[in-house]
């Protein structure tokens, strides 16, 4: 009883404390590839500390929703992240929410943030919210189609069971799984607002989506939102790792040694994912906003095709 609870708590803390490091890693990789030295990997932590230390400047006509939203966004994302198996396939509370619930929790967070973007009544806030919801209206069904594919193969929507099934190694190569992976990568890029869908480091008016939505935030509120964004990136990377490359993850419960192995395997996967993301962002250019629906539509179609294949034939 104590050990699983401890593992769950460790998971929650680790994913929270390491997620800014992942952002730092991606930025570092990008700047090295651009022949810059770049900021230190721990710069995101410094940014967070700086933001926390500053007073929060809130617009005159902001309502209570504007001030509550960052906490809700952060909490929902954190709960979703806590349900993703990272080092061990046996999470204590995994049964309280399956992959569909995780997707929907992220949806709740986005809902709150999009509303907060419209609260002050500025043109940029509305622009960001509108575009974010447009992207989500395609990314969310695509994500659910991926969930369907994986769930149909593993016979469960629970991430722990899926991870256990994938660890067993009886899955083999499947067309539908490949489609799901491709779709998941697209969705992950879109949902985290990375290039080519959105550029996290831009403040150019016409191109920003996520940044436009949170433009009015400052101080501790902005810190919450930034932390939630980095948590979400780590969540998606962990999800990809957990479903498609679960190797090294501890399959049995209550084995501290295996868990430790799983932990380092997970760290290695996250580092690899961060580097891959940095490389990908360097070699790809940002898309026009109205190219994004085609990009995401491809993900949706891939996901749906994967599910259709699975309905037609179990071996695909």
């Amino acid at each position: 009883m104590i050990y699983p609870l401890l593992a769950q708590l460790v998971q929650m803390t680790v994913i929270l404390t390491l997620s800014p490091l992942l952002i730092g890693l991606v930025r570092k990789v990008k700047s090295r590839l651009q022949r810059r030295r770049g900021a230190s990997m721990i710069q995101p932590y410094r940014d967070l500390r700086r933001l926390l230390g500053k007073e929060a400047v809130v617009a005159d006509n902001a309502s209570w929703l504007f001030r509550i939203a960052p906490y809700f966004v952060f909490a929902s994302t954190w709960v979703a992240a806590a349900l993703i198996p990272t080092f061990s396939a046996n999470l204590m509370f995994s049964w309280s929410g399956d992959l569909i619930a995780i997707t929907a929790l992220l949806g709740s967070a986005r809902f709150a943030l999009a509303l907060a973007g419209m609260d002050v009544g500025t043109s940029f806030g509305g622009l960001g919210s509108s575009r974010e919801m447009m992207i989500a209206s395609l990314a969310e069904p695509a994500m659910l189609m991926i969930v369907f594919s994986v769930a149909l193969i593993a016979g469960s929507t629970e991430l722990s069971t899926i991870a256990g099934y994938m660890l067993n190694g009886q899955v083999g190569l499947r067309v539908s799984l490949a489609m799901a992976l491709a779709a998941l990568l697209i969705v992950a890029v879109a949902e985290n607002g990375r290039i080519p869908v959105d550029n996290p480091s831009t403040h150019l008016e016409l191109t920003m989506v996520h940044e436009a939505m949170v433009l009015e935030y400052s101080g501790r509120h902005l810190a919450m939102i930034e932390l939630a964004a980095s948590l979400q990136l780590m969540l998606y990377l962990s999800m990809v790792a957990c479903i498609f490359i679960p190797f090294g993850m501890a399959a049995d419960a209550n084995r501290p040694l295996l868990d430790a192995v799983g932990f380092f395997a997970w760290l290695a996967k996250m580092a690899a994912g961060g580097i891959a993301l940095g490389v990908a962002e360097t070699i790809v250019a940002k898309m026009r906003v109205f190219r994004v629906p085609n990009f995401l539509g491809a993900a949706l179609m891939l996901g749906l095709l994967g599910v259709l294949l699975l309905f037609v034939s179990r071996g695909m």
Partner: protein
Amino acid sequence: MMPVAWAIPCLLLLSAAGIVTARSAFGRVLIYGGCLLLCSALAIGGFDALTAPNQHLQLPIGLPWVGTNLRLDALAGFFLILVGLGGGGASLYALGYARHEEHPQRVLPFYPAFLAAMILVILADDAFTFLFAWELMSLTSWALVMAHHREDGNARAGYVYLIMATFSGLALLLAFGLLAGDLGNYAFDSIRNNPPLPEVAGVVMLVALIGAGSKAGLVPLHVWLPLAHPAAPSHVSALMSGVMTKVAVYGFIRIVFDLVGPTQWWAGTVVLAVGGITAVIGVLQALMERDLKRLLAYSTVENIGIIFIGLGLSLAFRANNLGAGAALALTAALFHALNHTTFKSLLFFGAGAVLHATGQRDMETLGGLIHRMKVTPFVFLIGCIAISGLPPLNGFASEWLTFQAVLLRPEFPQWGLKLLIPVDGALLALAAALASCCFVRAYGICFLGRPRSDAAAQARETDPWSLSAMIVFAALCLLTGIIPGAVIDTLAPVARDLTGARMPVQLGDAWQTIVPIAASRSSYNGLLVFAFITISILITVVTIHRLSAHGVRRAPPWDCGFPDPTPLSQYSAASFEQPIRRVFGTVLLRSKEVVDMPPPGDNRPASIVRTIHDPAWEGIYRPLAATIGWIAGKSDLLAYLTIRSYLSFVFAALVVLLIALTIWQ
């Protein structure tokens, strides 16, 4: 005996009292207070009926050899709960809201009769009573729609509604005629004992889908709904959207699941296809709508689509003798029906409060209401989150169950089902995502931002009666969301009656987890998710306030350095929907945007014109109306013939009939 049946005469008495006392405040309190009490009793009676044995009642009125048969079984009990809940809530709301009614004499007499008609539909156990009650329900609600008949567009709404209601009644008449067969079995019991042939059953299923579906708002029979529902006073809108559409769903379930007996697999595909299309078209049209109440009405169309997806899945499973799957899908559909009653009533109440506060239904004139009203914005937000299918509220729980039913994927022998079920899953996912977009837009434009008109800037909070109704429904949204197991267990007798199976017992499971099939397959715990979110928020708030600087400074908005003092520059409803319109609307709704930018030196203002075409109106109803008009015009000639021509027509008809008779024999 059947105690709940007493509600019908009591409501009719209230209706009569409404005629007399309509103009006084006493009348308002009497009618709505009486309806509130009766509806509460009704909900309790319906709840009892879920587990009690079936009750029958035969009255010596109605058709001479059939009489009036009433029956209360688990299915009727569940829908009585919906009527009691929705009707009670609307009555509580109306205690305050109806104070602003200018013509109470046009609302009060019909309101209790409308409730009584809906109860009678649910209790009816023979075709005559059912159809009589169905038509009464249509007529009373039509009268309520026409309460403000002098307002723009309401007369047209009433006209379209009347036509569609007649059509729906006609289709159901045909369905019952087919079910009655040569023997004239109008009592439901004798229909159950003599199930129709499979071919006839298929036709009955289709006709019932058309008849009940046009009342519920299935695409393409939904065109009246966004016109009629918003035209009525807000508490009646809530009743029509939240409850009457469910009574239509009840009609479909009663005929197809109960009376027709086993259906063939293709019945499921038809319902699945219609449900999926309805869900997506409904939410897309809601997204393009700028009238708040009409937006809610379109969203009702979407939710009816979701309910019919569940029903279609259930039919598909049942046709393949998969009892557990059929029970799961049916439970999901009924659960969603309950949820829709709670959140749609709540949202219509909120829209009514906004309408009262500002006199506006047009979202482009609202904004900033969150500063002017204290409670309504909060409860309306809960309704928006619930209807968007987001955890931990109830909309998510029922959509999650529907997804689980899609994911069951047994070995269907039929290719139609193999291909259609995953597509429906995708349509459902798309509709859910678009719904959350739609309600971010609705809430963001109406309640957030800066006021777009003086009326919005001067808005005031509504009265305590209305608020209490909204608070009760918001609490219900949360409760059924975090303890969905209780609802699933409550629905078990209904599923057992109609599918012969039930879902596993949910209550008593540790921490109120819901497990639709098996624990290894999927589980969801709304209570824990809610607790986790709350705890995380608390931890974060405490930590942040310990770690960070405390100050909050109010300053002008930043807006990238270009804040604009006029509210015109903020995003409007039309601008918010523009990306969606471009992505989805260009094909499905043939939306178009024409920008007229005058060249330099020209002084006329620039303009942007957007046009949206409703495929149902233009593809079906316009041509249909044109054809009917054409035929009517041509047959008008017949009215001006000579007596000789008429006589020769009669003679010709006689000859043709005689020839036909000879050939026949």
